[in-house]
């Protein structure tokens, strides 16, 4: 008995060690970005995995060069990415939670049809609607960072409504009824009684939307007026797609700047992010 326990402990140690090694390999790509962002461009391709020492050291040059790279100020793309992500997420959270509550509680034929359409929209790939959507958005002047959230609300409503309706249906009706008897209208019932109960789902949906919108490339690429507005993914894709030689060192510097906030966000909200992903996955 003791022997097998010791054997099991040893096996667990070995497993830990193996996973530890895999972990180190896992962070190598990010480490590669870090070391190459300080390396002179000519050495990025030839000495990708060497530390930026001696003649390879570029100091902060890559970062300074990267700021105005591709004839577009990098900080603008950061600004627009933040604006679009925050506005879209806020709009989706408010809009779809209200709609979902209405759908679950009123439950008319129209509500059921709308709900069905939302579920249907989850299996439709973006390519199906991308040309017509970008055209519609253009005609309605939704091609700015301040109006594109409406497009996100429209195309992203499906999953959010699906998740909210599922949760509202599990809330006992008595609580809202008590509020109604105490004289609350639907608006106050929703915001003072339902929203606090929805908070965990709100966090899950919010996390999923932030991850989607922040990293999204094709939708803003097709909808936004690219002369004026670029998000971070669009900007980075422009650098590589542009003619002439690409400065890989400066590109890596920008990529580093782009992923640092993401990693900080992840480490700060890790628990919610993992819970949100697990909740969102159940949509199947």
């Amino acid at each position, binding site marked *: 008995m003791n022997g097998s326990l010791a054997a099991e402990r040893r096996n667990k140690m070995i497993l830990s060690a193996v996973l530890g090694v895999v972990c180190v390999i896992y962070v190598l790509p990010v480490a590669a970005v870090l070391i190459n962002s300080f390396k002179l461009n000519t050495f990025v391709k030839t000495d990708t995995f060497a530390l930026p020492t001696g003649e390879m050291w570029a100091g902060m040059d890559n970062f300074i060069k990267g700021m105005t790279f591709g004839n577009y100020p990098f900080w603008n793309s950061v600004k627009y990415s933040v604006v679009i992500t925050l506005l879209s997420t806020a709009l989706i959270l408010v809009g779809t939670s209200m709609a979902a509550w209405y759908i679950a509680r009123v439950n*008319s034929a129209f509500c059921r049809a709308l709900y069905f359409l939302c579920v249907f929209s989850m299996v439709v790939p973006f390519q199906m609607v991308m040309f017509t959507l970008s055209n519609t958005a253009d005609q309605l002047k939704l091609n700015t960072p301040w109006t594109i959230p409406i497009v996100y609300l429209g195309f992203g409503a499906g999953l959010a409504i699906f998740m909210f309706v599922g949760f509202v249906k599990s809330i006992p009706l008595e609580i809202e009824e008590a509020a109604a008897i105490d004289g609350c209208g639907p608006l106050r019932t929703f915001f003072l009684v339902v929203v606090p109960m929805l908070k965990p789902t709100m966090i899950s949906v919010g996390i999923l939307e932030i991850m989607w919108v922040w990293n999204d490339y094709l939708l803003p690429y097709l909808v936004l007026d690219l002369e004026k507005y670029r998000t971070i993914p669009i900007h980075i894709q422009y650098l590589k797609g542009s003619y002439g030689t690409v400065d890989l060192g400066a590109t890596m510097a920008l990529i580093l700047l782009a992923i640092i906030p993401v990693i900080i966000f992840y480490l700060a909200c890790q628990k919610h992010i993992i819970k949100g992903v697990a909740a969102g996955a159940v949509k199947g």
Partner: protein
Amino acid sequence: MSRKKLARGNTIRRSTRKWFPLFLGPVVCAFIIGFVWPFIQGIYLSFCQFKLIADAKPIGIGNYVRAFKDAAFTHAFWYTTLYTVVSLVLINVLAFAVAYALTQGIKGSNLFRTVFFMPNLIGGIVLGHIWSMIFDGILSKFSTSIVMDSKYGFWGLVILMCWQQVGYMMIIYIAGLQAVPEDMLEAARIDGASKAQTLFKVTIPNVMPSITICMFLSLTNGFKLFDQNLALTNGQPITMQPGGTAVKTTEMLALNIFTTYNNSSPNAHGTAQAKAVIFFILVAGLGLAQLAYTRKKEVQQ
């Protein structure tokens, strides 16, 4: 009793109903702009020839015929299928193995989970550029590069996607594994089942719902892949077919639709939209069929 129950649901329903414009209005408007109208218009335009949507003229099924005859499109279809099968198997096997290891109560489980999930936060475009630098860094030692050989492009994409998706699927598998009843595992242990027997006869049947979800997700993710494909190889290298058509050898379906649309031929827009409809039917159909199949298995077990 039943009358009381009826009255209960009605209080909220009746008082809320007239608030339709406020609660449902914004979402319905946005949903029409962002989904319903583009979808209907998209189906209509797939039967039209057009440069600008305003002067589209119906031409019947010509676009679909062109789409199926397009060597680049059929190549993209088979390439996408192959990629999806390979990545589906690899991602799910690795993710399950990691999740299984992390639920054995070993030291550092939380740290490992954090690290493995991290790549999911980074977007596809950025990932593509990171990995193209890494692959080129390795391949330049052999004086070649990721865009020189379609084999490199294929396996490069598989490695990239494993790196990204294993952590995601792992989270779902961990949730499934933690829900396996402890007394069931204990019963198996007391009955003298080996570790492998417990895994295959008790654990795996119990996590079938998670397996369903993960298969469904990796299947549709594989078919819909775009950003990583664009950023890593953008379809390169290109080969010339005997007929004179150029085929991008590492181009997947979503990217093919995109490049077709940007083509200068007068039929390009219509053909791209027809391809998009085919693509939609494929993705939706595959997803639903796969789901129905695994759900059936679940019930049998």
